[in-house]
């Protein structure tokens, strides 16, 4: 179950991971994109963390909404509207129930797909969101399953996002958004959200 407290910890831990890996994420994006995924995500999550730490939330739904709006207005790249749409959809779902964590993640995935129109297997963050949801549904979300899902993107040819312009030259590289999504679910694991 999500609470204001564990959701704050989750997203703050996510921010800290992004901050630590900013250069690495940008380096991944340099290979198959425009080299800004790390700085985009660092700018966005740092602003989000500040908002989370300085606001007294009365609900998880409200927390996700503020997180979403902050990312949408600060990230500056595709990951802004994508993570933003995920968190907005999660905010809606959390209004209905904070008990069912897979349902919240499912809403997030649907939010991303509504925004970016990517299906699974197009070498985007969708691949890791979808794999994490599968794992949550079967109680098998571990560092290992997350890592596997992230690594899977290396072998795929991109058909959405900037990397799609590279066609078969995108093969052999990790998708930066998949890697940052990996950090989101690592942070979830570390946050005692799922038992």
């Amino acid at each position, binding site marked *: 179950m999500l609470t204001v407290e564990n959701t704050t910890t989750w997203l703050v831990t996510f921010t800290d991971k992004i901050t630590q890996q900013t250069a690495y994420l940008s380096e991944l994006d340099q290979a198959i994109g*425009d080299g*800004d995924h790390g700085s*985009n995500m660092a700018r966005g999550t740092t602003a989000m963390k500040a908002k989370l730490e300085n606001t007294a939330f009365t609900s998880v739904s409200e927390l996700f909404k503020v997180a979403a709006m902050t990312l*949408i*207005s*600060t990230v*500056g*790249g*595709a*990951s*802004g*509207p*994508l993570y*933003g*749409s995920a968190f907005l959809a999660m905010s809606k779902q959390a209004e209905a129930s904070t008990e069912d964590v897979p349902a919240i993640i499912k809403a997030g995935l649907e939010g991303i797909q509504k*925004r*970016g129109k990517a299906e699974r297997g197009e070498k985007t963050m969708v691949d890791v969101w979808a794999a994490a949801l599968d794992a949550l549904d079967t109680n098998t979300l571990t560092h290992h399953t997350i890592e596997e899902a992230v690594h899977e993107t290396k072998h795929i040819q991109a058909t959405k*996002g*900037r990397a799609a312009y590279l066609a078969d030259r995108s093969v052999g590289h990790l998708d930066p958004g998949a890697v940052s999504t990996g950090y989101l679910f690592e942070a979830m694991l570390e946050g005692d959200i799922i038992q």
Partner: protein
Amino acid sequence: MTQAHFGVVIVSHVPELAKGLVALLKESAKDVPITYSGGTDDGDIGSSFTNISQAIEENTADEIFAFYDLGSAKMTLEMVMEMTDKQIHLMDTALVEGAFTAAALLQGGAPLERIMQQLKPLTVK
């Protein structure tokens, strides 16, 4: 000219690109309300929710043809569209050709259907 009903909004990752395209359009569409958003809040390359919202709100027209360059420009435009009262036609055309076609036809007073019809073959995304 009476207050125009239709306007054009340009959204690009690069401030100079957006600004330059507007200069090109204005040559053939001096009476059409055209506004733009280029780059991030800090003027770097990327997209800004705030700048795009502003370009839409500052445009004196109520119904807008919006043109964009790549990925996040479109997605951010869509987020703004969900939060504005204005009617926005998000066009997946080649940026320069599409925007020029719309602006020139609007200057000539063409109706919506006619403009849509001419934009359709310019769809590239």
